């Protein structure tokens, strides 16, 4: 069984924080297939959020195929989040480390690097959104 944290000031909607924590627990192996998630009542009694927040998070996880609701029993882990093959993280990490060294030697400080990364991520997802709209 896992417990959740909900940070009201993170800017991430509470339901999404719960979704992300379940996915993270699955990736880390803290949760495995067959494990039960805490009931809505148990979650809200602990973190004091609206019950619909937890329901929405669990429904999203169900839609992703990660959990399943069994009538009268609760919500259980069904699968693991799809992820890149092993080794991908460390390979990308190495190339990112090279890029960070290059950025540093070009005179960028941490704040500029973080802001550049955020801007690039946002621009990239905007391009993708407009691509998918054109397809639609």
């Amino acid at each position, binding site marked *: 069984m896992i417990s959740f944290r*909900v940070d*009201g*000031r993170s800017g991430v909607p*509470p339901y999404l924080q719960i979704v992300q924590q379940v996915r993270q627990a699955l990736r880390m192996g803290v949760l495995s297939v067959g494990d039960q998630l805490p*009931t*809505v*009542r148990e979650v*809200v*009694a*602990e*973190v*004091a*959020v*609206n*019950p*619909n927040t*937890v329901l929405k998070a669990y429904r999203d996880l169900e839609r992703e195929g990660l959990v399943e609701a069994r009538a009268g029993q609760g919500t259980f882990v069904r699968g693991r989040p799809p992820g890149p093959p092993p080794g991908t993280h460390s390979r990308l990490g190495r190339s990112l480390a090279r890029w960070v060294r290059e950025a540093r030697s070009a005179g960028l400080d941490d704040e500029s690097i973080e802001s550049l990364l955020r801007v690039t991520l946002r621009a990239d997802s905007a391009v993708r959104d407009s691509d998918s709209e054109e397809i639609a």
Partner: protein
Amino acid sequence: MNTAIETQGLSKRYRRVTALSDCSITVPESRICALIGPNGAGKTTLLRLLAGLARPTGGDVCVLGGTPRQDPEFLAGIGYLAQDIPLYRRLTAEDHIKAGAHLNPRWDGESARTRLRELAIPLDRAAGTLSGGQRAQVALALTLAKRPRLLLLDEPVAALDPLARRHFLGTLTAAVAESGGELTVVLSSHLIADLERVCDHIVLLAESRVQLCGDIDTLLAEHKVLVGARKDTSALERAHTVVHAVRTARQSTLLVRLDGPVLDPAYEISDVNLEELVLGYMGASAAPALAHLTAVGEDQ
């Protein structure tokens, strides 16, 4: 979806003072509704009218399909917790639970005992010797033992420390989860961060009037903050509603209720959180008091 609370033009005057004016709100069943507003805005008056503890001087009010009144049938569906946590100081939680059984037809004393045991609150100690947080939990457990369909809570966490507040709100949300959609809550508080976690509906009062009422997610999606160089906003105001504006000599920061996309590229558009929304509407209703903000900018 059924409606738990519906008021139309509801008003309450006490001699010369208007406590609530032309109040029209709707709260669907199974919501947790935040009741927000400055002191003296009419929050307690509204709660008392909904609970049947006061009679309106104008307008209509429908609660759980009936008119609020002092009769056992109506009151059985209502749980009302006043601001000052009304417990008998010399009586224990167990005494209160036993007394409740005599007064309430649908009383579930065992649920109150279970709740209090889970929280490690002693049932056999005089209420006066418990901490503020424990007394609030006892009062909430007793109110829930009535098995109400509508719970009206008047600033229940105002006097509690952060941990006691979290526990109180945990008990409240757990009760809503257990009810399976049968329980509606109206909760007044000044602590917007708490309300943002717990509530999915809002009623905002200021100056004895309703400034805002609706589903929180919908309202947040409809409002944006626009920041840009100061300029004439009349074109913007033809398409959208500017709720509140802070203007310096060069810059405008506008809280806007959108009616379609913003076409003017001169504005940077950001999402609002509940606090910005509430402060914007409160600021709009108190515009004269904030006029100096504009004036400071003008001088520069």
